[in-house]
């Protein structure tokens, strides 16, 4: 079929035809995420904003333990890899000693809302002037799909194979609503990246969060509800649909705390 095309590849790939290119703040390393996962998109959104705001030389990121443990392989910025759950403490250490830098953590729900609950709440409550990007997919992806603090009631995981029984396993934790109550948080929002429109909204939220840090406003917290098609044992399309039908009613999208 190719030889019947009216124009060649060389003719198409000309600078004047270029409408999109990957930001140079993403490295050439192949992403280790499963096909259909939201992490790649979220990585790209954050890097695009840092690039557009010309902040590469001023940015220090903190990677968690979880699927995004290797974020520093993909993001062309200075980063520190933190112990499980401790990213807000690591970011506190960085920001307090480098107050003019843009400092962010990138954490999953197990990291942020289970093992790192104390670090999360206290960094928020101190109003650390950092930004937390919180990717919530309701499951432990990296370790193979175990129950997370955010796993929905009745949801099946490797450690709740008959569904999450809230009577014995507790309730899913809405940590974002919880930290929004703290006086130290300035901007708290919940977004997603499963449609182009939502990606654009997420990007705006990231922009705002970074702006607020520049203005020393305190802690900004951007939750991104995302899928885990591997952990949920669904195709990417099914996973996104399931997310809309089940995750969003429990974790509704939108701003939770906005500056007055």
């Amino acid at each position, binding site marked *: 079929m190719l030889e019947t095309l009216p124009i060649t590849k060389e003719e198409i790939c000309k600078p004047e035809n270029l409408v999109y290119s990957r930001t140079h703040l993403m490295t050439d390393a192949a992403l280790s995420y499963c096909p259909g996962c939201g992490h790649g998109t979220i990585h790209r959104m954050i890097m695009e904003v840092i690039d557009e705001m010309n902040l590469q030389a001023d940015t220090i990121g903190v990677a968690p333990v979880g699927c995004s443990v290797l974020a520093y392989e993909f993001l062309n910025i200075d980063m520190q*890899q933190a112990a499980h759950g401790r990213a807000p403490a690591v970011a506190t250490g960085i920001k307090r000693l480098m107050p003019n830098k843009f400092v962010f953590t990138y954490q999953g729900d197990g990291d942020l809302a289970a093992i790192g609950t104390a670090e999360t709440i206290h960094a928020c409550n101190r109003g650390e002037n950092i930004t937390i990007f919180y990717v919530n997919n309701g499951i432990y992806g990296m370790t193979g799909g175990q129950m997370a603090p955010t796993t929905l009631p009745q949801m099946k995981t490797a450690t709740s194979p008959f569904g999450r029984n809230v009577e014995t396993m507790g309730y899913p934790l809405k940590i974002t609503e919880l930290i929004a109550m703290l006086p130290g948080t300035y901007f708290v929002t919940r977004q997603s990246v499963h449609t182009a429109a939502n990606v654009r909204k997420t990007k705006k939220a990231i922009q705002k969060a970074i702006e607020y840090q520049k203005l020393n406003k305190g802690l900004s917290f951007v939750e991104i509800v995302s899928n885990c098609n591997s952990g949920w044992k669904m195709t990417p399309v099914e996973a996104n649909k399931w997310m809309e039908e089940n995750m969003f009613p429990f974790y509704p999208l939108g701003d939770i705390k906005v500056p007055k």
Partner: protein
Amino acid sequence: MSATKDIRLMKGNEAFAEGIIRAGCDGYFGYPITPQSEVLEYLSIQKTKERTGMVVLQAESEIASIHMVYGGAGCGKRVVTSSSSPGISLMQEGFSYLAGAELPCLLMNVVRGGPGLGTIQPSQSDYFQAVKGGGHGDYKMIVLAPASVQEMYDFTKLGFDLAFKYRTQVMILSDGAIGQMMEKVELDEQIPRLTDEEIIKKYPWVTTGKTSDRERNYITSLDLNPARHEILNRKFQAKFKKIEQNEVRFERIDCDDAEYLFVAYGSSARVCEKAVQLGRAKGIKIGLLRLITLFPFPYDEVARLAKQVEGILTIEMSAGQMIEDVRLGVNGAVQVEHFGRLGGIMPAPEEVLNVMEEKFIKTKVYA
């Protein structure tokens, strides 16, 4: 008293706090615990932000403290935390990550009795934890054992120097007695804190924001490639070997003609020093090998002295931990015995002298 010298009467904990300020510390992160709360209290009242620009932050836990240290250390800053035994147990996770990421920092443990909540009284029962590991993985940290308030002060600058020389953690292993007692301290001039520019120039590995003139820097202890990770671990071991070759420190007290030897560190060494005086007053030729570095351990010096003396008595406020290293150094050349008090009780000079006599000298007469 000389007019030019700045000499003060200070608690060990206060001397440590003043020491880190004057050694150019950038940040201290800590959580209150007896018997070392004076460190955070002293730093708080000193208004360090105004004095040198140093950041002092009370964290929500020892776990948070040590990971704040990690963040600061990753930026090449001179960072410190201190705690006492139960808090140090909580920090072991952080120590392991710091070792894996090769981050320099200064730590202090003002040891109290354990296990568990134990007691707030002085103890030396965290020797194994400090010297042999504590956190997971194959790593060591330099361990300095101050025996006076002056050394609580002096070891802060020494600790920073060693930490950055080797990109390693340095722990000051003190105890409740040294932390709480007051002695004279001679203070040095303030060493200015390094500027960000100086740090970037001195330490090219730091995360301070990726500039166009270099590749990105990242701080991590993770490497999932077994071959690479083995090479990394061998590099760590080579570093510890180098530390063992270069950084052994100890003090010989009346060792030249000694027939019997105490080996001790920290406040126990002070007790032994008095016992040496009491023993010599009775005509017994006793010496004291006071350890200053616990890692690296002075195996060679112990081996030399083992050939000279007729018996070695280790004095520790523990059930016998350091004695294992002494025996490794002695390697069977002479009898090595242990005496220790537990539960926060400090041995008295007469008591340890008596044990020395009972174990070695009296038995010799009857033999």
